């Protein structure tokens, strides 16, 4: 390590030396991107931590704990916007917690047989591919629809599987006032258990999957899905943090370093949603997911340094774009405000 040793921070439990600017960058970016898209953004944290040198199980546990803290910040913000459907959130809670425990047990089982690193990495590759596909397919469909001038009640939405699921009449039926639809309670419960398992297994808040699931399978409007998902992540993330700590797979120091970066980033990301227009940023998001996927494959084949470069630059770029949206939009708003005041 030599003269560069000040760039490395000792993690007292896992016993590894970690590049701390990498930790700060990951925390900050995950805040910006998570605040903006309503997805925890943790799809980059577990692989990122693993690429920086954390053993896989520690990467998962540390990620899930930092997500819990970060989502507290974002949930506060979103509940101010009135974007949380609490009834839906509470309906989903039990499913999420059971799911997280199942996921965590699977990770520990894989660790015992020495396969946790490669299995989790390959599962990540599959899911990032799936998410990238969803983003791009959605973009493609919306573009097609817009060309035809067909704009439905949800605006130019893409996939609408929820229309089929809302036809299920299995009791108990529930009406979700804030989201404005009625469906069988089993739809959100099944969705939350499935996303919970993945959240616990991959060490994510689950926003990555729950958000699209809320929009495409449950049928929430996008802004309600963002807020409700964050509420879900907060409660379930705290449970995830607890169960992973009990299993001894957490690095608190890293949690706090990332949390501080994320707190600042989350403000920028959440405020930027106010000024964002169009699909361009979603395409960039899809590309960032693909870059993350590539870096995981690089790590799997032993190219750790290349993997770190790919993932850190991809998240920095998308982060810079969102920051640009936020600062340009905010400057415009403040200018308008001043102009309005001088006229009055």
């Amino acid at each position, binding site marked *: 390590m030599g003269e560069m040793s000040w760039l490395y921070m000792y993690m007292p439990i*896992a*016993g*590894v030396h970690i590049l701390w600017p990498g930790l700060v960058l990951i925390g900050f970016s995950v805040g910006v991107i998570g605040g903006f898209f309503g997805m925890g953004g943790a799809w980059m944290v577990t692989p990122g931590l693993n690429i920086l*040198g954390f*053993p*896989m*199980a*520690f990467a998962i546990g540390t990620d899930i704990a930092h997500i819990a803290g970060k989502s507290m910040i974002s949930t506060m913000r979103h509940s101010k916007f009135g974007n949380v459907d609490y009834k839906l959130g509470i309906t989903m809670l039990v499913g999420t917690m059971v799911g997280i425990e199942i996921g965590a047990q699977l990770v520990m089982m894989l*660790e015992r047989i*020495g396969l*946790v*690193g490669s299995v989790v990495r390959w599962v990540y590759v599959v899911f990032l591919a799936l998410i990238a596909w969803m983003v791009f397919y959605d973009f493609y469909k919306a573009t097609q629809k817009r060309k035809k001038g067909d704009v439905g009640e949800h605006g130019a939405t893409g996939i609408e599987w929820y229309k089929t699921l809302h036809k299920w009449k299995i009791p108990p039926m529930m009406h979700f006032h804030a989201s404005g639809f009625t469906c069988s309670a089993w739809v959100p419960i099944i969705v939350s258990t499935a996303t919970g398992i993945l959240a616990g297994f991959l060490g994510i808040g689950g926003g990555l999957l729950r958000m699209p699931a809320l929009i495409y399978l449950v049928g929430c409007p996008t802004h309600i899905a963002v807020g409700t998902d964050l509420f879900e992540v907060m409660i379930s993330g705290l449970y995830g943090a607890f169960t992973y700590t009990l299993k001894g797979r957490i690095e608190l120091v890293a949690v706090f370093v990332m949390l501080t970066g994320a707190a600042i980033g989350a403000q920028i990301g959440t405020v930027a949603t106010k000024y964002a227009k169009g699909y361009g940023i979603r395409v960039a998001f899809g590309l960032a997911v693909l870059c993350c996927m590539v870096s995981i494959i690089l790590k799997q084949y032993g190219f750790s340094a290349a993997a770190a470069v790919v993932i850190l630059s991809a998240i920095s770029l998308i982060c810079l774009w969102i920051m640009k949206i936020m600062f340009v939009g905010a400057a415009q708003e403040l200018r308008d405000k001043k102009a309005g005041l001088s006229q009055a």
Partner: protein
Amino acid sequence: MKRIVALAMALALGMLLAAAAHAAEVVQGKCLGFDQAAKTIVVEEYDINFSSDFKYGHPTGIQSTFNVTEAKIGIQPEPGDILRIAYNVQGTDKKALKVMNVTKQDLRKK
């Protein structure tokens, strides 16, 4: 919200005071023997002067015996493995809490 936070902090503070009484010791060194009948492990202690040639520290020649009756043991220790043991001293007895097999579960490779 504020009330919940305050309650949680009071609870945590209470437990902090309850648990601050004493600290367990940690030792790292080479396993010399694991007697499964007597539930003891003998270790030659290493110091904490790590270097690239001595990444687990240098041998000190001190031999210690640990009672592992109640310990959580990971991968089965065998003579020659580097172990890290957390233990409490009770009278003359060194009671192990956890035994980590450093050699066989090199976390850095996961």
